[in-house]
């Protein structure tokens, strides 16, 4: 199956990166996706890479990702999304979960 790759770049005012250096959430199961977040020195910017088998929904992806990055004032952050036909419902929830996870204080183990 050919995969579709989408790239988005953002720069918001007073950006905030994540607490952890690196965070991972979710699995690439059917109808689901995984989200990788990594602190990066992007001069305050955020880069998002989406890999998805779905075509024709680039606009929806852009809306979901834009609202997420801008709504949370994210910066100095690399977000990689590996999607397997997740609906916007699941995408939006996983992104919110991933951010909450990435901002948790580090504890031992999981």
């Amino acid at each position, binding site marked *: 199956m050919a995969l579709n790759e989408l790239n988005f770049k953002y720069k918001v005012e007073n950006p905030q990166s994540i607490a952890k250096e690196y965070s991972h959430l979710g699995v690439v199961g059917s109808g689901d996706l995984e989200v990788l977040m990594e602190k990066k020195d992007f001069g305050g910017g955020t880069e998002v890479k989406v890999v998805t088998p779905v075509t024709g929904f680039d606009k929806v992806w852009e809306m979901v990702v834009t609202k997420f990055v801008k709504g949370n004032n994210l910066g100095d952050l690399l977000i990689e999304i590996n999607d397997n036909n997740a609906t*916007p419902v699941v995408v939006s929830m996983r992104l919110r979960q991933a951010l909450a996870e990435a901002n948790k204080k580090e504890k031992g183990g999981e």
Partner: protein
Amino acid sequence: MEREVRVWDNLKRDTEERMKKVAHLVEEGKVVKAENTVALLEGVIKPGDKVNLEGNNQKQADFLAECLCEVDPKKVYDLHMVQSVVSLKSHLDVFEKGIAKKLDFSFSGPQAGRLADFVRDGKLELGAIHTYLELFGRYYADLVPKVALVVAFEADKEGNLYTGFNTEDTPIIVEATKFKQGIVIAQVNKIVDKVPRVDIPADWVDFVIQSPKNFYIEPLFTRDPGLITDTQVLMGMMALKGVYAEYGVQSMNHGIGFFTAAIELMLPTYAEELGLKGKICSYFALNPHPTMIPAIESGWVKNIHCFGGELGMEEYVAARSDVFFIGPDGTLRSNRAYSQAAGLYAMDMFIGGTLQIDKYGNSSTATANRVAGFGGAPNMGSDAKGRRHSSDAWLKCGLEYGMQDQLLGKMPRGKKLVVQMQETFKEKMDPAFVDELDAWKLAKNANLDIPPVMVYSDDVTHYITEEGIAYFHKCVDMKEKMAAIRAIAGYTEIGLQAKEEETMDLRKRGIVKTPEDLGIDITRANRSMLAAKNIKELVEWSGGLYNPPARFRNW
């Protein structure tokens, strides 16, 4: 003065005449052999009769339905079928064959597409689509059946019926028919010397027939916890914290979908953690949902009255007579009419899924080409205007009602909680929030007077999506309601019209709450929250008393 002589027992005389015609078909007592059923029906049914063919949500008078399809359409025609559920092929075949002409019903799951075709092609004249209680009411007004074809587990030769676990609609049908001088025919799985208990007394029944095979029954309320998604868990957590806990809801009906299955499975976990045990979920009008087992076993539930039974739950239910309604014989007695009455007047909340929500907040499961009806949902999902008793949840909801002052002036009155849950998108990127409900297209396609709406906007109090809860009843006018809908409609066309400052204002005023506003740790929204993760674990919770149907045994 001459007084006109009138006859006042025409109905009785007519029935006696019909009974005479078929007297030769009766064996011992009221028993008729299965092979004589078609002849019996041709004898007792006349053209134009109102006939009730017992099709319930679960059990089906399938043998009698098939026999009705075999009567001679030259002798029996133009029947007016009045029945709660149209779910078997034979239920519509009678129209195809010209035996029946008009239909009044409540719900038509699997036959909904064919029913729409029949109405459009003029093969069937549709009276109306009802809620169960509404249709039952009409059995005692303008839709009294002349002949009722009902179904029971067992009968004795005198005609006493045992309907047991799946009593469902039988009593209300039989009473309407028999006491208006009609004729009652029952198919049973077995004719026995003595029934375990009498659910319908013999003198209300005219004929009993042992059918060649056991009646069909549908396991409609079994939801495999293995199929519950993380999003459903999140929405369940939101419902528990933002509605159940917020209002202290003690009595309720749950829909049949996965949203409420998730909630049921989180009572012993998340709700327990929130300290809600004893404060919520004590009384239910509900079928014996297998997903209720962990909550019952953990001591959450005081009382459940059932509309019908559920395959596999017989032994478990019988062993929990403190919770369920159990007869002197030791088995459940369900009763759809009583449970619907409880759902209308005794329950503080109805919560369940829907399919489509329009920009005004009307909600419907109707699709463009299926005349499915809604069963009991519109009854339980509406505010009973005749309610006069008070409870904390009902009163709090009424106090918050944004239009109360305009409707009543200064007068306290409660409001039923009617909660609709739906993810913003369904499968295949189909948006759940729409400009116009498909119900409008259906009304056009099937020549209906009005679009079939499941729950009207003025009855809904709360909408829950993965984005948040809209406390819809708090809105003061339609303009505000529409903004609240937009605020939780996510990335649908409707949701994209949301204005940020408007949404922020609604959040500030507690009309919209996101999971964050509710203080929910969203990372915990995953399947590990469920007290049972599959059917096998439900069996374990039940101590082996739950016996799931084969198709759910995947281990």
